[in-house]
């Protein structure tokens, strides 16, 4: 078997730069008037926080910056927001619906 790129589990860290891959599309559904994530075989319905996180996750900014921005915007508890952001991104990564364009050591 020739060399194939075998995937490694993505561990979401503060330095990760997450972005949705080609097969996970965040889209506004005009008919149902809500945001959806289109993935193979399913449609995921993100809640408002998830939508906000994913709209920030463009592969350029880090998880840390995402947390900073949300903390500033909602004037919330940074630790709580951080836990929430990382949990959501890790969940997506475990399902294969998130790319990390450059955490530490990549």
């Amino acid at each position, binding site marked *: 078997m020739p060399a194939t790129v075998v995937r490694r589990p*993505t561990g979401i860290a503060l330095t990760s730069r997450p972005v949705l891959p080609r097969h996970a599309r965040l889209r506004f559904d005009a008919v149902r008037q809500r945001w959806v994530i289109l993935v193979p075989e399913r449609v995921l319905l993100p809640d408002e926080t998830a939508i906000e996180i994913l709209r920030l996750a463009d592969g350029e900014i880090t998880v840390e910056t995402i947390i900073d921005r949300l903390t500033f915007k909602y004037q919330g508890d940074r630790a709580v927001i951080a836990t929430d952001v990382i949990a959501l991104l890790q969940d997506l990564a475990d399902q294969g619906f998130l790319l990390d364009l450059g955490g530490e050591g990549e």
Partner: protein
Amino acid sequence: MSELIDTSSREETTPHPEMPMAVLAEMTHRCPLRCPYCSNPLALSRASDELSTEDWRRVIDELPEIGVLQLHFSGGEPLIRKDLVELVRHAGQAGLYTNLITSAVLLDATKVAALAEAGLNHVQISFQGSREEEEADRIAGMPGAHLRKLEAARQIREADLPLTVNAVMHRQNLDQLPEMIDLAVDLGAGRLEVAHVQYYGWALKNRAALIPTLDQLERATEIVEEAIRRLKGILVIDYVIPDYYARRPKQCMGGWGQRFFNISPDGKVLPCHAAASITGLSFDSVRDHPLAWIWRHSPALNRYRGVDWMRAPCRNCEYREIDRGGCRCQAFALTGEAENTDPACALSPRHEEIFALAATESAEDRRRLLYRAHGGGVWESEG
């Protein structure tokens, strides 16, 4: 807490369901393979009956307007259609998420590049076996098929298209399951669908040659559960179990005409890809009506919506809203009437008899296959 609701877990059934989010387009029934488990109907559509490119373009334009978000190109072998790349592009431009479900034997580097450039979101390739290509080719009914699939899968990953491997499992290949899982990892697939054969279409004709033993099934379930844990973050594994050995039937397609429809090669709108097998129902065609009208008013789609059509034991059963009496196609194929309880259910009066038959068939271990072909199929040569 942020949350992702998975739409595949909705349960209510209604006489007026909302528009499906996903639609399966069967572009053709033509196929270079002859899989004996093929879920296509025994009465295969002819090329001359197929919708034209113009028909498909019009249908694709209607889909997003009525709220459909995802379009799965399937068949038969969708790549036999010369207009596939054009239609994928058209669907993408219309805002649809596109998935190609293919045997991959017609995929080469040029085709892969064209599909990627046309905006295809995802590819699913079916495999008949893992290592021993002769055995995989024997199931596919096409010499050389397995090596071509391996090569196509590599091309897909090289073009950075996301890949799902579909492994259709039955008595004659279940022992290869661990290697099939390794194969999916080696190919760089993000997702593996381990699908035990569902017994309708050609698979029902071949049940005696394909149905697993209970032992095999239990072993397979253990293997999959172990692999799911071991490969977390590397490979997502979806598992479809055969309902012959279950106590309750599967919740088929989320209910008849509830969350999904299928467009057959000749344009009929079906609640699933097997429904054309139910004789006596006449399905409406996109050649005659707009999709929005068909979804709401087609008598064949309305026939088994809600729960009013049910007979005993389903009619008064506490599970009727959950599994909806199982699969109408299976009820029809095994009892002759689609209104009956799916015999996969332990409460069906036919369950014991059919279950016992399946167990006997699996123990007899007949291996000869009936290949999918026009005119009733072709038997594998003996010896």
